[in-house]
């Protein structure tokens, strides 16, 4: 929402002050860059001090990307759908459809056909969700849960019928991989630089190296889709109309927007994106389809989107965070233990900031938290694997608990809409 009557009151001090107060809630672009840089220095310092090189190794970053893409695609799917006002809990089901149809298409006609068929499979789930919620007006969450049940059931049956005679189990035969990109000169250079374990320099080399080594074309496609979605949804008339259906469908209708059509488009695209996430899981993260392979990543994608405040950049950060902790835990590294120190430092920073703002209660609480994490770090040698697996979920809960007042979902998100209801 823009400040009312800005043109007339530009010089007015009160208006400027008001703008400043409004701006305070949001981070400015330089501020975001500064925070990212600070985070990097902190991570690097911890890596250097505790000698846990896996924190920023190229393997870890590569693993993070591989785990973040399915989550990010589900989150992006959720963004499309919810921006048009349809809550999509069915993302998990559409992800499952993507894994099965991706594997089947790839097995039948080769990798790229697999990508296409997987996305179509996800889109099919999206179309069903659109039919049930938009045309029939059923509660969105209920429909989503039903689609998850149906997708799991249908793919379980299909896998049994199609794959079982071939491999005698509910999994696909090994699939041919998609192209992996290694940037010719850069990858080896960065690998050697990373091996020196210099402060900051090696960390940067590890991070960039993780991105440019063994990069899947699907990862590139996923990033392109994120950027493309941002431009399409926020910079074009189409996107404005689509988002208006999520904010105030009656007003959109009064301006001649066919709300049903836009909702259908959004939810079908949403399914296709989740389907692509599924394709990624069967063709890049692994090379076969297995029953129950998704492990609830569709739900995590949804959480990443909410974490990211229904914005593309935010959901990318959320997906990255989930991918990072997931990867650390899967690699079974002791690096997680060093992260405890990072959390302690982070909480200390927050405490200082709160105390400077004279918010003594929050400051004190953060200080106690920082002390506890530091104590945990000092008195133990490792963090139990089960608790590490919890991290992304706990972080999401904490972020929601502290930031949910600042989050703003589309105003008519999840509200059933009937054509002509505003008359």
């Amino acid at each position, binding site marked *: 929402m823009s400040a009312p009557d800005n043109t007339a009151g530009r010089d007015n001090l009160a208006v400027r002050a008001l703008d400043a107060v409004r701006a305070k809630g949001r981070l400015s672009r330089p501020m975001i860059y500064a925070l990212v840089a600070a985070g990097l220095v902190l991570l690097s310092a911890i890596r250097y001090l505790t000698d846990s090189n896996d924190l920023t190794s190229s393997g870890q970053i590569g693993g993070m990307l591989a785990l973040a893409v399915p989550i990010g695609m589900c989150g992006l799917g959720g963004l499309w759908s919810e921006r048009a006002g349809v809550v999509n*809990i069915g993302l998990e089901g559409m992800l499952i459809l993507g894994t099965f149809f991706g594997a089947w298409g790839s097995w039948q006609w080769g990798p790229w056909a697999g990508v296409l068929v997987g996305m179509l499979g996800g889109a099919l789930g999206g179309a*069903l969700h659109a039919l*049930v919620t938009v045309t*029939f*007006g*059923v*509660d969105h*969450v*209920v*429909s989503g*849960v*039903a*689609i998850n*049940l*149906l*997708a*799991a*059931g*249908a793919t*379980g*049956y299909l896998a*049994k*019928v199609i794959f*079982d005679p071939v491999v005698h189990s509910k999994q696909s035969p090994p699939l041919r991989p998609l192209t992996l990109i290694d940037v010719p000169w850069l990858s080896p250079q960065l690998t050697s630089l990373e091996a020196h374990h210099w402060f900051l320099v090696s960390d940067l080399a590890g991070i960039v190296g993780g991105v440019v080594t063994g990069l899947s074309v699907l990862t590139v496609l996923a990033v392109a889709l994120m950027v493309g979605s941002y431009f399409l949804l926020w910079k074009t008339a189409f996107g404005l109309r689509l988002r208006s259906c999520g904010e105030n469908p009656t007003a959109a209708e009064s301006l001649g927007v066919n709300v049903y059509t836009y909702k259908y488009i959004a939810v079908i695209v949403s399914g296709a994106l989740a389907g692509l996430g599924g394709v990624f899981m069967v063709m890049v993260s692994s090379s076969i389809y297995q029953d129950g392979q998704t492990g*609830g990543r569709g*739900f995590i994608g*949804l*959480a990443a989107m*909410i974490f990211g405040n229904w914005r593309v950049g935010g959901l990318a950060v959320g997906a990255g965070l989930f991918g990072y902790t997931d990867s650390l835990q899967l690699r079974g590294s002791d690096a997680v233990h060093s992260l405890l120190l990072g959390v302690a430092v982070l909480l200390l920073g927050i405490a200082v900031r709160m105390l400077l703002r004279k918010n003594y209660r929050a400051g004190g609480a953060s200080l106690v938290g920082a002390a506890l994490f530091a104590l945990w770090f000092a008195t133990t040698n490792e963090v*139990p694997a*089960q*608790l590490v*697996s*919890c991290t992304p*979920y*706990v972080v*999401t*809960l904490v972020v*929601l*608990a*502290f930031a*949910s*007042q600042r989050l703003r979902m589309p105003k008519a998100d999840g509200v059933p809409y009937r054509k002509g209801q505003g008359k």
Partner: protein
Amino acid sequence: MEHATPGGGSRSLSARYARLDKERLLLGLAAPVAAILFAALVTAIVLLISGKDPVLALTDIFSYDIKPDSTVYILNRATIYFIAGLAVAIGFRMNLFNIGVEGQYKIGVFFAAYVGGVVALPGPLRIVLVIVTAMVAGAAWAGIVGLLKVTRGVNEVIASIMLNYIAVNVIAYLLQPNLLGFSAPGSNDVSTKTLPDAAHFFTFGSYGGPIWGFVVIAAVLGIGFHLLLARTRFGFDLRTAGRSDGAAQASGVNVKKMVLTAMLISGAIAGLIGVPELLQDSFSYNLTFPAGWGFTGIAVALLGRNNPLGIALGAVLWAGLDRAAQQLSFDGFDSEITDIIKGTIVISVVVAYELVRRYGLQRQQQKVGRELAEQAAAAAGIQEKEAAA
């Protein structure tokens, strides 16, 4: 979500009211029946495409389910699903989607199994302790969601989903030999300590096998659920808040307190879901304890329209499909077909309920319109007579 409750029709004439009510009842039954028929049709098509005989499969399901040992199995299973359905339904009636029943029942049964295994008490007291622990632990886990919602405005669906994952990991962490777990000497299997024979719940002997005594507790819960919602001030407030929290607030209901209470009750019932299995079959908790009953509860509650009787029917249907799955694989079918049936039933039943609701609303509007027209005509007639006189 809107819930059609019986008795919402016009009360102008009692005869008409009764007729309308019967109509509503028929309409209400039409939806699930249509959904089941539709699911059977979809299943038949799927089977035909995969080259199997659909008639044989469907008759298989029915003929096998009415065998005595099947009916006992179904009844015992349905006990679990019924409790799960109730746990979800109480949230739905308050317009809360407790998708976290899945995590709450796991937490509930895990702590109940642990406490029941280590606290030395005589049999019946131990059973009571197990049940109370399960309810308290389930309620506490749900309470986190409730607190986050009322104090920080966190959406209950997302918070519940996160807590489902956290629950699984917390249990995996605590279920280690040096923590709350127990592993018999010479064995690698970790579980909680096994309950002694005295702490087993009673069963009814029958021709088809032992029927779980917990079915009685489930029945009591169902009746209590109905009475709580239909006959108490609390139930009225809860349903009001579920339909419109603004209206509830205006009539003096503390909506935040209602949200928290509803979550706690839902969690307490959820805690009980795993208890029949614990007290009648497994007698300890390990990592192979069945999962997914919370999601079954959602399906059953949707099918049963959040009404105890409907939930009971839904639970029996689900248990019947489970049972049939075992037989189908013997007869050369792929047992996964029952999952397609279940998924199709859920999605078509929610659509059918919505269509029926809209149709009923339309009929009601037409009826009210007709009555108003009659009244207007009658009033006009009187005026004409007066004018003539």
